[in-house]
């Protein structure tokens, strides 16, 4: 897959099968960065933490075949399994509760 970040509308996807509207060239930026470069802004760039986005972009673009909801490994897997467990368990509980609720009550 070709990943483009912050490329203006005038640039089109560069790959076989699409008409190129600009001369073939590498995408302007591989990773998104704030418009102000770190060296220009000095202390402001570290206001409330540093930019970890490029690092995260590397992690999420690893070609390991993992779907996006499991891309971060163990934590994702645990949360997914918990959610799915509650889904299936909840469905069974629900069906049972509805079955019981549908049973006629003996008149008092």
């Amino acid at each position, binding site marked *: *897959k070709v*990943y*483009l970040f912050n490329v203006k509308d005038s640039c089109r996807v560069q790959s076989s099968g699409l008409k190129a509207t600009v001369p073939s060239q590498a995408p302007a930026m591989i990773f998104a960065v704030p418009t102000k470069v770190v060296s220009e802004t000095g202390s402001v760039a570290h206001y409330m933490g540093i930019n970890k*986005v490029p690092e995260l972009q590397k992690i999420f673009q690893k070609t390991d075949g993992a779907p996006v909801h499991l891309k971060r490994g163990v934590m994702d897997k645990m949360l997914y399994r918990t959610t799915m467990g509650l889904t299936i368990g909840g469905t069974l509980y*629900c069906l049972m*509760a509805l079955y019981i609720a549908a049973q006629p009550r003996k008149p008092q």
Partner: protein
Amino acid sequence: MAHQAHAYHMVDPSPWPLTGAIAALLMTSGLAIWFHFHSTVLMTLGLILLLLTMYQWWRDIIREGTFQGHHTPPVQKGLRYGMILFITSEVFFFLGFFWAFYHSSLAPTPELGGCWPPTGITPLDPFEVPLLNTAVLLASGVTVTWAHHSIMEGERKQAIQSLTLTILLGLYFTALQATEYYEAPFTIADGVYGSTFFVATGFHGLHVIIGSTFLAVCLLRQVQYHFTSEHHFGFEAAAWYWHFVDVVWLFLYVSIYWWGS
């Protein structure tokens, strides 16, 4: 390696639509079980599942957009259409409650005393807390616009400050409205006045909470450098939603609080 020959987003298979649908099933069945059998287990389970679904689904969208670059201009256009259509559906939702209010208040029945507000109802003074609430929301509309311009101009500190202020104003509105609810001399059970008042303002209050939460998520993302000056649609969507909430309040204030008193 294969390249996709188009700019659209072919999403990875995801379990969240299923878990969300089951959450809806559990919440609705749970509501019925609560009403008839006094057990809140099923409904609570549904709520937990809903929260888990929302967290993971929206987390994945952020991953796909910010970290994987899937939100190309055509994709972003689709997201814009989606948000606009969603807000439009919410407008229709509120339109229904305004219809109900005007239906009952324009031609008050003899049972109400033939007048509006109905006999026995002391409405809230529109020029006390409700007017303050109006000022609070209008101010928050200014601060959210300030935040937008700050983001577009790459002013990180200002963006964080103005977005925080917007959220604080939203929380202030909620707190004020909560005290109004507590102090009100009438309840939801007080005829059609109580019903229309609390259902319309109640759903509005819920939307203020939802909007504040959306803005809070945007604040977290802004702090974490997710937004760039050219690409920050998540924030724009939150701002649109916030303006919508503000406009609904203005209609509520003029119709129910002011004209309706």
